């Protein structure tokens, strides 16, 4: 159920990569149950912002306020740290999602396996349950990874270009699942380049340019030609960013 509360806030956030300041004075909040698209040209700091939100990059000033427990946060980066040669099946990968809340010592019980099978069925990968990860296509792999976040009951989900190199059927399945997760109250942030996908999935957007960020309803800029050159739009849009 979508609410108007926000469990993720950025307060005068300033992030740097090495000695180079990438983003400064970022203020805003992510509503629970909203899917927020993160857009901007290459090098504008999308990955830096995600790293900052996930606590992988320490802010040089300001702070990230996040009340979502760590075990309910999930991040699917574009360049996966996941080792695809790992001798593990799709079902086993999905089941690892229950580990953070389940603990390291207890084994999986029948209810966990039942939930895992339901999730795989929802994502249309039941027939791949016992297939090794290395034999999956890009789309199948992305479905399995989203399956893990569902198993994790993620309440904060960050996705970096989740539809890149993915077949159109998978895009539809993943969009449906992401909308369902948002409807259940999850905060979802997704880096997107495709404006058509953005308009269908996201309810809000953050545009990054020139080291600044601007929150805006998706409709407010979809008509504007920001995809190729977001900077002129932002010069106008960034004015009036409120403090936290």
């Amino acid at each position, binding site marked *: 159920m979508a609410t108007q509360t926000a469990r993720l806030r950025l307060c005068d956030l300033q992030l740097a990569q090495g000695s180079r300041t990438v983003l400064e004075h970022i203020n805003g909040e992510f509503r629970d149950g909203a899917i927020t698209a993160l857009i901007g040209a290459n090098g504008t700091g999308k990955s830096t912002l995600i790293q900052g939100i996930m606590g992988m990059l320490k802010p040089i000033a300001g702070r990230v306020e996040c009340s979502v427990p760590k075990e309910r946060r999930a991040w699917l980066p574009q360049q996966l*740290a996941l080792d695809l040669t790992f*001798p593990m099946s799709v079902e086993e990968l999905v089941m690892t999602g229950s*580990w953070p809340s389940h603990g390291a010592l207890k084994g999986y019980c029948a209810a966990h396996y039942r939930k895992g099978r339901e999730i795989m069925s929802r994502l249309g990968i039941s027939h791949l349950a016992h297939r090794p990860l290395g034999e999956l296509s890009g789309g199948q792999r992305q479905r399995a990874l989203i399956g*893990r976040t569902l198993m994790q009951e993620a309440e904060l989900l960050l996705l970096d270009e989740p539809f890149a190199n993915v077949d159109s059927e998978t895009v539809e399945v993943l969009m449906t699942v992401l909308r369902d997760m948002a409807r259940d109250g999850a905060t979802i942030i997704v880096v997107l380049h495709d404006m058509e996908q953005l308009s269908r999935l996201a309810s809000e957007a953050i545009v990054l340019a020139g080291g600044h960020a601007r929150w805006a309803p998706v409709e407010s800029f979809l008509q504007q030609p920001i995809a190729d050159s977001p900077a002129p739009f932002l010069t106008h849009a960034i004015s009036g960013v409120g403090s936290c």
Partner: protein
Amino acid sequence: MLDTWIWWISSPFDYAFMRRALAACLVLSLTAPILGVLLSLRGLSLMSEALSHAMLPGIAMAFMLAGFSLPLMMLGGLAAGLITVGLASIISLYSGLREDAAMASLFLLAMAAGVLLITLSGSALDLGHVLFGSVLAVDTTTLLLVAASCSLVLVILAMAFRALVVECLDPLFLTLQGRHAGWTKALFMGLAVTTLVVSFQTLGALMAAGLMLLPATAARYWSRRLETLLPLACGLAVLSSIVGLLLSYHLDLPAGPAIVLLAGVGYLTSALLGPYGGLLGRHVTRRQRDDTGREQHAI
């Protein structure tokens, strides 16, 4: 004929030193390959080899301080190994140098320091014994120490197995959970160092990683499932240990190298014949694919 075989297999174990050697090798064969599988999956195979060499100065210093006491020498090796791992992590963290490069530099340093210390300590500590091991000289105290250490490693492995697997598969996933990531890696490296130290008496500092890595990498050519890889790797290590000891006894070969060489033969055979990535297996698959393609084309 059968009698000859039974004699060939059983006669060496009439001797207590051979029974102790067999027990030590079997205990090690049921522990080290499990860590080897996880190390190879994490891409840390070479790191473990470097680690086994890094134990040398600790072993030498323990000898210089307390004489020929295997428990203390193993403790010294453990301390040296853990210090090297810790230093490599710190150097990598603060200088940006990759951890394997830091480890390689430190292990060379440790190796040179170790050999120097052993030489300085006089002829009482046989360099060959330290470098190549002497499984046939395992006494009851050492055997108990090996068995106790391996049992402890196995119990901890069983308890932390899921965390270790998740950390191998997707370190980012575990890092995001915050609480466990650093500890899991430290625990993993601690278990690897402990097992290497235990292997040192049997196979020596130069080949301590032999029973850990060779069966583990060989097993990967035969299965893509973790639950099959682990018993396969242990099975190959057990086989190498038993046959290696028998060959060593009957042909008067040094036991450590015989065991590691047999594990190496197992690896080469697997790399040639294994269905998953083996040279011959890949050739057969390509032939089948070509044939299928030609048939479809003809139709």
